[in-house]
């Protein structure tokens, strides 16, 4: 299709698919008070969509199929494709018309405190998702939209999330429909595999292949579970009544034209692919008829208006499902017709129920009555709509029901189910007449209800307009079917079956025939049922006698309770522990066993050991280092400070080792980090409790056994690591990627310090990830400490700051602190020095950043928090943010020059006073690293340092409180 008209239509189609989402996005930007604007925007979006659909109408009427294909991941065969034919067009128009009316209705129904922009945003997204199901030309895309409707309906049903019923209803709906969606996904994947394509056009042609395939049974089962959960077919129907906790406009939308109809849409759409077999007939028609009957029977016994409508919806969905199961051309036409009719009258009835609820404050039919006197217009509308629901002649419901009855009577395949269809249909119809009667009679007639929560009167005119329009449609379609819906229905049926389908004339009068007689019987029985049972029902429980005890909801609740709460917790009780030590022990043991197991029998040393000449200095150094490590382990419990000093000793020896074996960068960084870590731990020591030496249990036998076991594990692990380290270190060196880095660092990285070049150029992306981690840790530390409350015994000022000692220590550490203050500019220079030489000589962003952080830290140590912050404004979060931005910016900068992300460019520039400086874009990246390291480190240190302020504040508060308490005691009481 290369002609301009086709291009225009394709663009219309794209716009149509995007419009609701764009509208929803716009709505999210509105403030929560903008209620009118929110309603207006969403109404306009729906109107625009209707306009777009109207723009396609002409082309659709001549049986064109409009498609748009956009390649998304061509290598995987994934494309975004949209597709509109007559069926989809009719359905989408229905969704948009009802949607528009719902928006008008909701604009008056929802209250100001309900955050309307959010509500309409969700509603539009839901509409977009529903429309996405209809428009999808690709199976996978269809499933994605399918799940999106489940998600959005979850949010809509639970919109009043303050109420437990809404939350439960929303959760049940989500669990059921989303699990159905998973089944559908598998079904679609299998269909795609069997048909060889995921494009709907291809799949629709592949019906015979799929039905002949051995997987047909499983495909059908999965597919039907998906469709039935969505369309609330027995036994998955119970989520629908639960979803009645939603705001009424949502119920009116979800349960008339959308959500539940999605399943029906799928059944009709895929009838040519999967349908027509005996299996399909029994499963779909059988479940459909069962649902229709159960729904109709239960509906009669519900006292809640919306509950009645919910079960009535289930029943009507069953009817349509049954038609889809029969699958003759007449049945599918009837199904499409009834989809429209049901949407129209059910939406209007839900709106009426909402109006009644809104005006009287209750939906309980036992409390309502005689409302016709105070709400004559609403009452008349409700009566017409209920009559359509019951299938009274001259209304739309009658026509589609006649078609349905005609199909049940017609011969299809002569099985027992086929033969019994008319009887089941009459029973269900009778009940539907009875519940429609009950709806009208108990609400609008009889004595006027007293003591209602509100005094009822007609609603705002605009709240009624949508109902009026819908009822008008009921009547118009009912009287003039051939002029109104006839052509569209036929176009839709042709889209499902193919172009050569004969035109199906929908007429009001077919003469006196079997369907009409069945209808009359149903009316007679229905009226009889209601008149004899009305009293009994009102006095009875919420549901049919006996049957109300057997409810899917209860079963589901039990399964959920056991499956997601009781059993998992029991399993957790067996398999896990809250205690940290056993977990860590397990980690160490597993690591040890895995290493030991894989090295067992494979462990051997190299034939000629690579040995470096031993040096006594080095040995001596590690004698001290090892002693420090063991000492720290020994003393960490009772002598924390000593342990900390020894930890530092081990760290310094590690640092010297790096220097010894040609890793100056590591040595510098390790030394600086060592300083920071030690300071941090020193700051932390202040908040730990005093340790009493004489904990009795420590000396008991079990404690000794535990310690002995842990010591054994530790020694074995240590020996294992030693063995592995020795075995590898003594192997000859093999050429590796490092050689490439060495050879190319200067040539293509522009720096002579290979380690730095790797970090900021060759593997800059890794470094970027790593500094991001650092930023996250910094923020986490900050966030955790914001809520921190020190333990009560740590609140008191430390000994050095309290009492007489404080006076004596006025000049506490005077000389060192003066020196530390003076060090500030010097450290900044050192930091700059590290930074600029980094690319060529040991140093770099990390080292410079930590040095800079130490400069700040020294200021805090030398004086106190208040002194520093009165003179220095440190904004660590800004440092971090700017650092990250610089790093990303450098990476993105390479895109501008047409290189991949984080490609670096290198050259030397001459700066005044400093001389030749290696200036690579990597240097800018390193600047980002620097800024981020400064920010994150300082943020953590400051966060911990500020705890002392908080403790001081708490101390002051306590003192004040005690002072006031004393005052009260001292004040004499005169009365």
């Amino acid at each position, binding site marked *: 299709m290369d002609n301009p008209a086709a291009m225009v239509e394709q663009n219309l189609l794209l716009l149509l698919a995007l419009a609701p989402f764009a509208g929803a996005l716009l709505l999210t930007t509105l403030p929560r008070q903008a209620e009118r604007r929110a309603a207006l925007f969403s109404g306009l979006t729906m109107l625009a969509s209707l306009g777009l659909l109207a723009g396609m109408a002409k082309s659709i009427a001549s049986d064109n199929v409009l498609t748009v294909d956009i390649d998304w991941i061509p290598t995987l065969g994934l494309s975004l494709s949209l597709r509109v034919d007559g069926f989809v067009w009719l359905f989408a128009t229905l969704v948009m018309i009802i949607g528009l009316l719902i928006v008008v209705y909701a604009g008056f129904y929802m209250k100001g405190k309900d955050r309307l922009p959010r509500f309409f945003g969700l509603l539009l997204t839901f509409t977009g998702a529903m429309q996405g199901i209809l428009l999808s030309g690709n199976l996978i895309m269809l499933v994605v939209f399918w799940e999106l409707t489940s998600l959005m309906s979850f949010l809509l049903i639970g919109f009043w999330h303050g109420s437990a019923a809404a939350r439960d209803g929303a959760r049940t709906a989500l669990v059921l429909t989303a699990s159905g969606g998973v089944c559908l996904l598998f079904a679609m994947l299998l269909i795609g595999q069997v048909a060889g394509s995921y494009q709907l056009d291809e799949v629709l042609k592949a019906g015979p292949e799929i039905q002949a395939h051995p997987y047909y049974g499983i495909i059908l089962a999965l597919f039907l579970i998906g469709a039935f959960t969505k369309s609330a077919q027995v036994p998955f129907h119970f989520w629908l009544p639960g979803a009645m906790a939603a705001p009424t406009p949502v119920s009116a939308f979800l349960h008339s034209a959308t959500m539940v109809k999605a399943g029906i849409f799928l059944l009709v759409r895929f009838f040519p692919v999967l349908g027509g077999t005996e299996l399909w007939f029994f499963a779909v028609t059988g479940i459909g008829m069962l649902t229709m009957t159960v729904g109709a029977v239960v509906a009669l016994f519900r006292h809640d208006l919306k509950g009645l409508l919910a079960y009535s919806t289930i029943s009507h969905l069953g009817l349509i499902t049954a038609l889809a199961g029969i699958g003759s051309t007449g049945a599918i036409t009837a199904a499409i017709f009834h989809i429209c009719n049901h949407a129209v009258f059910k939406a209007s009835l839900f709106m009426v129920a909402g109006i009644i609820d809104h005006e009287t404050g209750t939906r309980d039919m036992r409390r309502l009555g005689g409302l016709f006197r105070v709400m004559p217009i609403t009452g008349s509308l409700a009566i017409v709509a209920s009559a359509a629901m019951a299938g009274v002649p001259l209304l739309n419901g009658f026509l589609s029901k006649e078609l349905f009855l005609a199909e049940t009577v017609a011969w299809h395949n002569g099985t027992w189910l086929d033969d019994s269809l008319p009887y089941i249909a009459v029973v269900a119809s009778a009940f539907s007449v009875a519940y429609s009667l009950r709806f009208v009679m108990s609400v609008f007639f009889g004595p006027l209800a007293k003591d209602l929560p509100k005094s009822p009167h007609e609603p705002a005119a605009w709240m009624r307009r949508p109902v009026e329009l819908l009822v008008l449609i009921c009547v118009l379609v009912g009287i003039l079917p051939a002029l109104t819906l006839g052509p569209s229905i036929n176009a839709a049926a042709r889209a499902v079956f193919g172009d050569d389908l004969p035109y199906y004339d929908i007429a009001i009068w077919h003469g006196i025939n079997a369907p009409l007689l069945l209808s009359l019987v149903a009316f007679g029985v229905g009226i009889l049922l209601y008149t004899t049972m009305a009293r009994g029902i009102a006095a009875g429980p919420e549901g049919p006698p006996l049957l109300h005890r057997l409810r899917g909801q209860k079963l589901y609740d039990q399964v959920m309770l056991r499956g997601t709460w009781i059993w998992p917790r029991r399993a957790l009780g067996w398999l896990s522990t809250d205690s940290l030590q056993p977990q860590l022990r397990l980690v160490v043991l597993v690591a040890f066993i895995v290493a030991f197991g894989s090295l067992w029998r494979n462990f051997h040393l190299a034939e000629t050991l690579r040995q470096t000449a031993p040096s006594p200095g080095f040995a001596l150094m590690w004698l001290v280092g090892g002693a420090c490590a063991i000492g720290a382990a020994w003393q960490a419990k009772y002598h924390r400070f000593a342990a900390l000093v020894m930890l530092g000793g081990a760290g310094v020896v590690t640092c010297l080792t790096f220097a010894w074996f040609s890793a*100056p960068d590591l040595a510098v960084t390790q030394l600086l980090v060592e300083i920071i870590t030690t300071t941090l731990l020193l700051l932390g020591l202040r908040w730990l409790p005093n340790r009493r030496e004489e904990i009795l249990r420590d000396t008991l036998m079990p404690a000794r056994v535990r310690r002995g076991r842990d010591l054994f594990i530790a020694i074995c692990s240590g020996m294992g690591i030693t063995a592995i380290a020795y075995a590898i270190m003594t192997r000859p060196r093999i050429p590796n990627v490092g050689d490439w880095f060495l050879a190319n660092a200067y040539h293509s990285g522009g720096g002579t310090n290979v380690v730095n070049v790797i970090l900021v150029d060759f593997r800059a992306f890794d470094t970027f990830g790593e500094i991001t981690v650092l930023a996250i*840790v910094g923020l986490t530390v900050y966030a955790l400490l914001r809520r921190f409350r020190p333990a009560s015994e740590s609140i008191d000022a430390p000994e050095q700051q309290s009492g007489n000692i404080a006076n004596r220590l006025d000049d506490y550490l005077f000389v060192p602190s003066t020196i530390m203050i003076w060090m500030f500019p010097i450290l900044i220079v050192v930091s700059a020095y590290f930074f600029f030489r980094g690319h060529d000589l040991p140093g770099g962003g990390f080292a410079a950043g930590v040095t800079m952080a130490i400069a700040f830290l020294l200021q805090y140590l030398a004086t106190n928090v208040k002194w520093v912050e009165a003179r220095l404004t440190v904004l660590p979060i800004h440092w971090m943010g700017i650092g990250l931005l610089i790093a990303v910016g450098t990476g993105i900068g390479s895109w501008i020059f047409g290189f991949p992300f984080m490609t670096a460019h290198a050259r030397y520039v001459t700066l005044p006073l400093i001389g030749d400086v290696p200036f690579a874009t990597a240097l800018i990246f390193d600047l980002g690293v620097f800024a981020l390291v400064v920010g994150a480190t300082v943020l*953590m240190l400051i966060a911990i340092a500020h705890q002392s302020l908080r403790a001081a504040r708490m101390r002051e508060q306590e003192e004040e409180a005690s002072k006031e308490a004393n005052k009260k005691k001292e004040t004499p009481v005169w009365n």
Partner: protein
Amino acid sequence: MELILSGAIGVLAASGIWLILRPRSFQVIVGLCLLSYAVNLFIFSMGRLTPGAPPIMPKGGFVDPTLYADPVPQALVLTAIVISFATTALFLVVLIGLRGLTGTDHVNGKEKSEA
């Protein structure tokens, strides 16, 4: 040299592991520090020990990789040092928070028979 260093790694690791199995949070934090020294040294030593040949290149000309220390483990360890500092800080804060919230410095948040 190799023997000394691998022995040292073992001693650091054993001390660290023993400490992380202890019940007091301060012991665990010191243990983690020691363990991170051990692991950093271990990774570093995977590039073999080459004294006196830091990976600083001449400006231009042919480079013989065998004359220099392996830069890859060094780059790995450099980032590891910074990250282990970050995790130590995080753990310290959790330790302080735990102490403030539960009133004990036992790793489980409550005093238990396990000493």
